[in-house]
């Protein structure tokens, strides 16, 4: 499947998880979660509030940097997205570095708000566009945030969900097999009994993505928005 096709599958898979929520926030440098959230908003007839950090037009925060965190603690933030330089079989993420955390052999950008949001936001969706064995590992070197039952990981190859403390395969994207996924994943996993194929975006979704979603994405993610418009 071409890269743009995989992206659209990821966006649709995430957007479907956001249906019925009230308030979804998206951190910096997260174009796929941003597109998925804006798609969920468009599908909900704007009943989902979307806060895109770093956006002047799609953020409803007026109380400074702390507001996102206070909002989460108040129970007013239903979903947030995290990436993870490492993500492990339990759903834990590592945003800090490899090796000794006091002197990592490789350091990532930092923990940001993940240690807090991961425990306070009911729906934290993990997202990686480069499903591979170095990223998806048996055990993270540093627990920026621990895993949690029900947490989902959406990659460019499949959707995992934590059940009984470990990721299970929920759906695989078109073109993937259980074998191709095992080869690309650094941890062992079971597939859910009903694991099927990730549903591709339908025509309504595709037209919303090309139209209002792409338009809303232009401010913060112009290149990504242009690709959405090309379809």
């Amino acid at each position, binding site marked *: 499947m071409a890269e743009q096709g995989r992206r659209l599958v990821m966006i649709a898979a995430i957007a479907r998880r956001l249906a019925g*929520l009230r308030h979804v926030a998206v951190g910096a440098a997260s174009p796929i979660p941003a597109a998925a959230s804006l798609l969920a908003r468009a599908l909900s007839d704007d009943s989902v509030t979307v806060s895109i950090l770093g956006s002047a037009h799609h953020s409803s925060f007026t109380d400074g940097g702390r507001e996102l965190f206070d909002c989460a*603690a108040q129970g007013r933030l239903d979903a947030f997205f995290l990436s993870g330089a490492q993500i492990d079989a339990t759903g834990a993420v590592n945003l800090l570095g490899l090796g000794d955390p006091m002197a990592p052999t490789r350091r990532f950008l930092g923990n940001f708000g993940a240690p807090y949001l991961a425990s306070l936001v*009911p729906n934290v969706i993990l997202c990686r566009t480069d499903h591979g064995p170095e990223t998806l590992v048996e055990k993270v070197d540093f627990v920026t945030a621990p895993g949690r039952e029900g947490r989902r990981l959406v990659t460019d190859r499949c959707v995992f969900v934590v059940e009984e403390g470990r990721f299970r395969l929920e759906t695989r994207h078109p073109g993937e097999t259980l074998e191709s996924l095992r080869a690309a994943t650094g941890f062992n996993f079971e597939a859910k009994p009903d694991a099927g194929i990730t549903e591709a975006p339908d025509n309504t979704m595709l037209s919303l993505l090309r139209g209002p979603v792409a338009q809303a994405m232009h401010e913060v993610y112009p290149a990504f928005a242009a690709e959405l418009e090309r379809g």
Partner: protein
Amino acid sequence: MSWPPSSPCPEVLSAPTPITLAAAIPDGASLALAPDYSGCSLVTIRELIRRRARGLRLIGLPQLGLQADLLIGAGCVATIETAAICLGEAGIAPAFERARRAGEVQIIESTCPAIHAGLTAAEKGISHLPLAGVIGSDLVDLRPDWRIADDPFATGQLLLVPAIRPDILLCHAALADNAGNLWIGVRRELMLAAHASRRTLATVEEVVDHDLLADDVWAAGTIPALYVDGIAEAPNGAAPVGLRGRYPSDRARLHAYAEAARTAEGFNRFLNAWLGDG
């Protein structure tokens, strides 16, 4: 955890009026109210009295004024938690004073920074906030729910004040927009209270067509719709108290109230006239 979870946010009221706002404040609710200088929705208070609300637990932000005195005199109030209650330059709140003497209202005595601290704890989703000062005041003895603890980071003791999570903030402001964003300017205690409260209901002088969040000059003084559950347009909705930047308080009327309400009969005459007003 089921997916998706039920939303933690209450439904937004559709097409609210002061009457439907008052109807959305159930008997027994804890209700945060501003002092007379900071955005009082008297027009909704009137509807609360008309519908004979009962058992309200008022929380002052951090004081209470005319709104509380009217509700107390009309028998709507069970308890008040406040740093003070008065009618500004018109002095003692007369209906409160009568209810207090009759034992009809329970007073939870507080101090301004303790109420701000309790609301801040609620805003941050923590059980309590440490508070400087206050220890040494007899007030601490009146609050068995407050705790004194050794400061874990310094010598000395700290007062720990539990979170205050009002069911509802009711206020009046100058402007809102069609999306439900509420402009409160520098009356930032209303934003704190909106963050801390489960619901926020407001009346405004006018609903404007432009998006208050689109321009940072306006956004800086705006409570986002995210926190606001119902807004009704109600010009002059704070009267007879004033609204900063819009109109002054009606001093003659406030003094007339303070005078009349010294007796139950005088209070009822004033109230009936007011209920007949609009």
